[in-house]
Structure formats: structure tokens, C-alpha cells
């Protein structure tokens, strides 16, 4: 039994994490979003460098300098997003970057395809290596990724949520392949959210929380309930200055909303003064739901009622005109125009109100932007500062200012505090309170359970595009929500 042991003290996202991997085992890595699983794996695969700590491979201490080096050491990784080249053949993809050569610079196509076929056959996968990747299904692509990782001598294979996009059948094929790898003595680190998978293929499980190591257990010696407790494990504290607002009449009602593939048959309502939390794992359809409500994604069926009136929201403009505002999950790529100033960003959706015959009225713009700068305490040297130079928290406030400037009443916050420091978080929460007190309705999507629990009046839990649970703030606990989100009942 050769042991692999890694310690990473002092890393920002990871603090004193230990992981011991045995030969030929499937080791499950478990934790909430942001618990540090991906960071740890990126260090192992050479994408990040550790700041401190030690890594041992086969008993000898090693430094993993870069992804290429990791591969040379026998560490393969399969990311959540595939990195296959769609218009190359399966065999060519498997050997991409380390093709066998006939002469220097000339690829030995025949040998390469044969070798690729052997790898696939060994995995028990029926894919012709001459097929182009673009013609494969998602599950088959996942298996090609596995084959690719195995095309070099692999001792350790890391799989990051490999089943998130697969069907039941495809999962079975993948698990069979994993079984074969195990038999060959390959060690597998398997990152997953799904409890049922853990008990099907896992040998041992390590739980991470907030970048810290919580514990390692033999899978057959621990129950689901215990694992969930370990994953959640923290107390709600005074970070969440929740103030109850008076809940008024209904602002928004959604009935049977479906979008292609990602959201199915979702119904809920939102009242004035209410903060409606939506929880769920990544890929559960939360963001797609928000996009659809805001007219940015296509709606296949279902009805939306705003202030009791049936509305068709076909574009963001239509949504804005109905008084909706959307604070996107990804501020930089979807929320802000980084090269424009604070003032211009705040006023962008409401330009019509600050212009006459298409000509901007600079004084009115400045007055409005100035007002939100004060109200939201946006820290910026001037209104003309480009937002690219602002901190994350202040950028978020600029986006909020943009919707307040429009007097939006239905605000959708998608991960409002992601990447924001603790102080700014509290400020954002206070702003949410103020908005609710003024009679706005707020939908808050978040992966952070404490935030959802601390700030919501009501909580919906989504999983695979559906709403799978609804709790009042009084009855909700992290355990209940997590059970729901993980598909446990």
C-alpha cells in the first residue's frame, strides 16, 4: 500500500487540508460550493501553485510545477467543462499533445488510432476512434475525456463532477469504466455533490468545508445524515442583519414556467416586502430561471403575472418596463460595462429618462448618479471613474444603483455577495432590507446556505430545473435544504 499525502496550510482558499489517497481506491471529495474542492484539485493538477505544505507521491516529496509536469508525474484530470476539440477525431483528441511520431513532425496516424482504440476497448466503451467528437453525445465525450487522461501512464485520475451532464445509462457506463480502472490500480479522486453516487462507487470520502479539512471516513461506516452535518457544520451568526418587512400584495406570480432543458414547470409567487430565497446547486436551473424571467432566455411554456396582469416578457427591455431588475451572477461579463464610468453604468438602462430628443442631460444624470452613490455608499473617487477600477462590493452596488435608478420593484439578485468581502456583504444585506421595507419584492438566488437562511422570508429549493421544496424561514435549516437540493427526501 503506497500512500499519497498532501498538506496545504495557509492557502487563501484552503487551510491545512490533508488528503490521503490509496492505490486503487475511489476517493470521494465532498463539500458545498466554494468549500475548496476545485482549488485543491487545481493544485494537484498543477493549474495553481500551493503556498505552503507538502505533497508526497509514492512516499517521496514532490513539487507540481505546471499542468504538463503533473501529467508527467501521472496525475490526470477531467474538468467539468470538456476540453476536447470538436472537429478532430476521437483518436486524435485522445493523443492531442503527445502524438506518436513516424518521423519528427509527422504523426503516425495509424498507430495513434490503434492505440486509442485499445484504450477505449479496455474501458469497455464502444466508440469508433474515427468519429469526430462533435458527433458524440455528452456521455460519450465524458468517456473520451477519461480515455484521454489514460493515454498517458496515469496513477491518479481526478474527476470533477463527471456525471453532472450525463443520463442514467451513461452514468452506468462511466461507473463500469471506473471499476475497471480501479482494478488496474489507478487511484481516483472523485468530486461530486450527489450522495447516491458516493455510496455506489466510493471507497472513502473526505469532507471539506470553507477551505478546511473536516474528516475522512470509510464510506460504509458513515450515514448520509452524518455527512450532511459535516458539510454544513457551522453556526448562523450576526452576519445577517435580517429585518422583517411588512409583506404586501402580490407583485409577481409564475405559473408552470419551462425553458428548453433547464427549467421545467416552475411556479411561485413574490409579494411586496418579501425576500424569496432560491437555493440549489450549480446547474440546478436557478440562473436560467432568472434569465427567463428577465426576458433574456427563451420561455417555452408557462405564464408570468406582474402585479396581477398576465405579461409576455420577450426581451430585457420588456422586463425593465415592467419594473424588473436583474443583478447577474457574473458581474463583469454580464452586469457591467467596465470601460464606462460609474455614472454611465448607473444611468444606462434609464437613459431615456435623462435625455431629451436623444441628447443626454448631463446635470440630471449626475444628480441621479450622485444620489445613488450616497445612498448606496459607493466608494469611488468620482462619478466619472471607470467601474473597472472599483472593488467587487462597489461594483455590485453600482449594478444595484442601476436598477434603483429605474425604480425597479422586482429585483432578482443572483449570487449577490459572491467574491465580496465580509464588510461589503453586510452592507449589501442592509440594502436588501431597505429595499424590502420600501415595498420591493426580492428574489435572492444564492449558493451560500447561511445567506439564504439568514436573509430570506421564504425559501425555494431547486434541483434539476424543478422546485423540489419550499420552506418558511422559521422551519428551514441547512440540513433540510441540503437534503432537498441533493435529491433526498
Amino acid at each position: 500500500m503506497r500512500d499519497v499525502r498532501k498538506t496545504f496550510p495557509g492557502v487563501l482558499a484552503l487551510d491545512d487540508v490533508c488528503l490521503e489517497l490509496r492505490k486503487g481506491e475511489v476517493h470521494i471529495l465532498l463539500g458545498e460550493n466554494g468549500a475548496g474542492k476545485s482549488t485543491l484539485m487545481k493544485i494537484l493538477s498543477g493549474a495553481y501553485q500551493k503556498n505552503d505544505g507538502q505533497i508526497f507521491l509514492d512516499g517521496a516529496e514532490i513539487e507540481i510545477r505546471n499542468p504538463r509536469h503533473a501529467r508527467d508525474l501521472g496525475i490526470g484530470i477531467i474538468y467539468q467543462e470538456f476540453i476536447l476539440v470538436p472537429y478532430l477525431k476521437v483518436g486524435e483528441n485522445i493523443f492531442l499533445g503527445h502524438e506518436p511520431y513516424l518521423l519528427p513532425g509527422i504523426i503516425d496516424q495509424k498507430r495513434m488510432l490503434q492505440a486509442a482504440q485499445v484504450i477505449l476497448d479496455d474501458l469497455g466503451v464502444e466508440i469508433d476512434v474515427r468519429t469526430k467528437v462533435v458527433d458524440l453525445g455528452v456521455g460519450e465525450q465524458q468517456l473520451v475525456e477519461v480515455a484521454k487522461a489514460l493515454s498517458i501512464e496515469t496513477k491518479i485520475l481526478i474527476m470533477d463532477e463527471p456525471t453532472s451532464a450525463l443520463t442514467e445509462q451513461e452514468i452506468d457506463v462511466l461507473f463500469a469504466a471506473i471499476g475497471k480502472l480501479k482494478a488496474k490500480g489507478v487511484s481516483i479522486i472523485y468530486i461530486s455533490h450527489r450522495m447516491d453516487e458516493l455510496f455506489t462507487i466510493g471507497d472513502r470520502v473526505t469532507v471539506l468545508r470553507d477551505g478546511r479539512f473536516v474528516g475522512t471516513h470509510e464510506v460504509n461506516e458513515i450515514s448520509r445524515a452524518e455527512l450532511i452535518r459535516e458539510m454544513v457544520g457551522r453556526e448562523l451568526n450576526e452576519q445577517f442583519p435580517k429585518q422583517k418587512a411588512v409583506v404586501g400584495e402580490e407583485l409577481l406570480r409564475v405559473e408552470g414556467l419551462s425553458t428548453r432543458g433547464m427549467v421545467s414547470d416552475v411556479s411561485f409567487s413574490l409579494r411586496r416586502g418579501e425576500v424569496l430565497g432560491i437555493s440549489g446547486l450549480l446547474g440546478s436551473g436557478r440562473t436560467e430561471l432568472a434569465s427567463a424571467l428577465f426576458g433574456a432566455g427563451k420561455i417555452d411554456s408557462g405564464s408570468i403575472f406582474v402585479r396581477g396582469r398576465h405579461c409576455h416578457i420577450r426581451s430585457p427591455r420588456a422586463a425593465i418596463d415592467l419594473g424588473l431588475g436583474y443583478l447577474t451572477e457574473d458581474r463583469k461579463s454580464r452586469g457591467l460595462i467596465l470601460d464606462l464610468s460609474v455614472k454611465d453604468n448607473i444611468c444606462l438602462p434609464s437613459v431615456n429618462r435623462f435625455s431629451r430628443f436623444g441628447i443626454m442631460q448631463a446635470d440630471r444624470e449626475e444628480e441621479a448618479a450622485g444620489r445613488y452613490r450616497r445612498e448606496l455608499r459607493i466608494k469611488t473617487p468620482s462619478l466619472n471613474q471607470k467601474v473597472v477600477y472599483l472593488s467587487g462590493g462597489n461594483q455590485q452596488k453600482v449594478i444595484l444603483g442601476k436598477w434603483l435608478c429605474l425604480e425597479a420593484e422586482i429585483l432578482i439578485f443572483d449570487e449577490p455577495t459572491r467574491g465580496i468581502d465580509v464588510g461589503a456583504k453586510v452592507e449589501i444585506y442592509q440594502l436588501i432590507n431597505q429595499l424590502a421595507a420600501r415595498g420591493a419584492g426580492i428574489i435572492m438566488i444564492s449558493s451560500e446556505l447561511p445567506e439564504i437562511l439568514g436573509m430570506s422570508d421564504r425559501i425555494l429549493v431547486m434541483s434539476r430545473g424543478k422546485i423540489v421544496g419550499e420552506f418558511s424561514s422559521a422551519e428551514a435549516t441547512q440540513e433540510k435544504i441540503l437534503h432537498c437540493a441533493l435529491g433526498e427526501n
Partner: protein
Amino acid sequence: MKRREFIIHYGRQFGTLLGLIGLCVVLWILTPHFLTVSNLLNVAQQTSINAIIAVGLTFVIITAGIDLSVGSILAFSGVVLASVLRAGCPIALAMLVGLAVGMMCGLLNGVLISFGRIPPFISTLGMMSVARGSALLYTSGRPISGFSENFRFLATGKILFIPAPVVIMLAVYLIAYFVLNRTKFGRYTYAIGGNEEAAILSGINVKLYKTMVYGICGMLSALGAIILTARLNSAQPIAGMMYELDAIAATVIGGTSLMGGQGSVIGTLIGAFIMGVLRNGLNLLGVSSFFQQVVIGSVIIVAVLMDMALKKQRD
């Protein structure tokens, strides 16, 4: 810190302006013919057509697009304008017809790009050929020449002592500056180029505004055609070849980023003048035309290098 802020906000234009001034000083030292009122007006007049087309391209490039068809649109709207003039149409009406032709070509570009989802490079490359071919077909390849003095005033006339094309150019720049900095349209232009996704989510009708931007670009090409036709007293179907590259060069030298979201017409004006002054100066000095191409190419590369360095400093 003060200095850093200054570089961040105005460094690019300031650098370009300094480059222009430096160039003028060098020419002033090298030849007595450069720094005279008549030569400076001469340069301004020669720069005007490229400068006007470059305004349209500046708008397009700020939206992170490109328009390769401006030269061909210039030729096509020029020959249509000329034929209408020759048919005895009043000057004002003929000019409107010419501008309308250019604008239609541009709008068609815009529709293909916004609604047809064809990349700007491809659709305007297509338009480049279509408009050129149309101009040749329309005229059977022959130039149309001979216009009234009143029409030719647009190129040969002087207002006070300033040549008419220069007055037109300055007017275009004043309007363009106003539009980009003080109007909704301008704000949206920057927003679309800066982050199209965020612009859509801010409720901007991105498709409509993009289409309009290409329409404006086409119309300004047609304005260039009016001046060119008046200047040469002839409209040629093969006019304006490679003008797109000159206009793109002026825009890029002026600091507009091909990635979109950033740029100014003032920079473009300076860029167009750098090219005009260089050509004029090299002619005055009697430098071989082959060498002129080398120099102008180098200036473009230096300008972009400057951009990259400034960006680095910013981050």
C-alpha cells in the same frame, strides 16, 4: 497618482497628439515648404475624405465591429450621385440620393450583422464586393464626369479662407463628438462595444443600434463620395479602393480599440492627420513612394504598440 490617472484617461490621445506635433516639427526643420498656411490647408483638404470615412469606422469599431466595405460604398454612391446630377437633378436632391444609397448599403450591412448574425468581417467583405460590382455594372466601368460649378464648390470652394471639404470635415467631427459624448445613441454605442451582453440585459435594443451604426458608416462613406466627386469633377466606379484600410489605420492610430468599447473621434481626427501630414511631408521631401508605404505601415504598428503598453500600465 495624479500622473497615473492622467495617463489612464487621456494618455492615449495625448500621446497621439504629441506624435503629430513631433512629426510637424521634424518636417518644419526638414523643409521650408511644410509650415505655410497654404500647405496646412492643403493637408487638411487632402485629409478630409479619409477623416470623414474614419468617423464612421470609429463608430463601428467602438461597437467591436469592422467595416471593410466603405471604399466600395463610396464608389457606388459616388456613381449614383454623378448619374443623378448628370440627369439634371438639383444638387441638394442629388446629394440626398447619394447619401441615401450609402446609408442603405450600410444598413444592409447592419441588418446582416445584427439579425443575420454574420460576423462583421464577413458581411462587410461581401458588401465590399457587391457594392464595387454594382458601381461597375451601373456605369459599365466608365467614369461619369463633368458637373456644374455649384456642385464643385463642395470641393473647390472656400468659406472665409478655409476650403469647403475642411469645413464639412470639421462639421462632421463636431456632430460626431456631440453624438458620441452627449447623446443616448453615443452612450449605447460605447455600451454595446464594452459589453454586449450587459447592454442587452440593460434593456438596450442592441440589434437596432448596431444596424444604425453601420448605416451611419455607409452614409459617411457617401459623404466622402460627394466631396471626392466634386474634387475630381468625376465619379469613378473604381474610386475608393483600399480606402477602408486608410480609414481603419486612422482610427487605430487614434487609439480606438479593435476590441470595442473604447475610442474617440478626436483621436481619429489626429490619426487621420498623422497619415495626411506624413504623405504630404514625404511628397514635399521627394521621398520615393515605396518608402512612404514602409513609413506609414511602421507608424500604425508603433501606435498599436503604444496602446498595448498603456493597457499594461493601466492593469
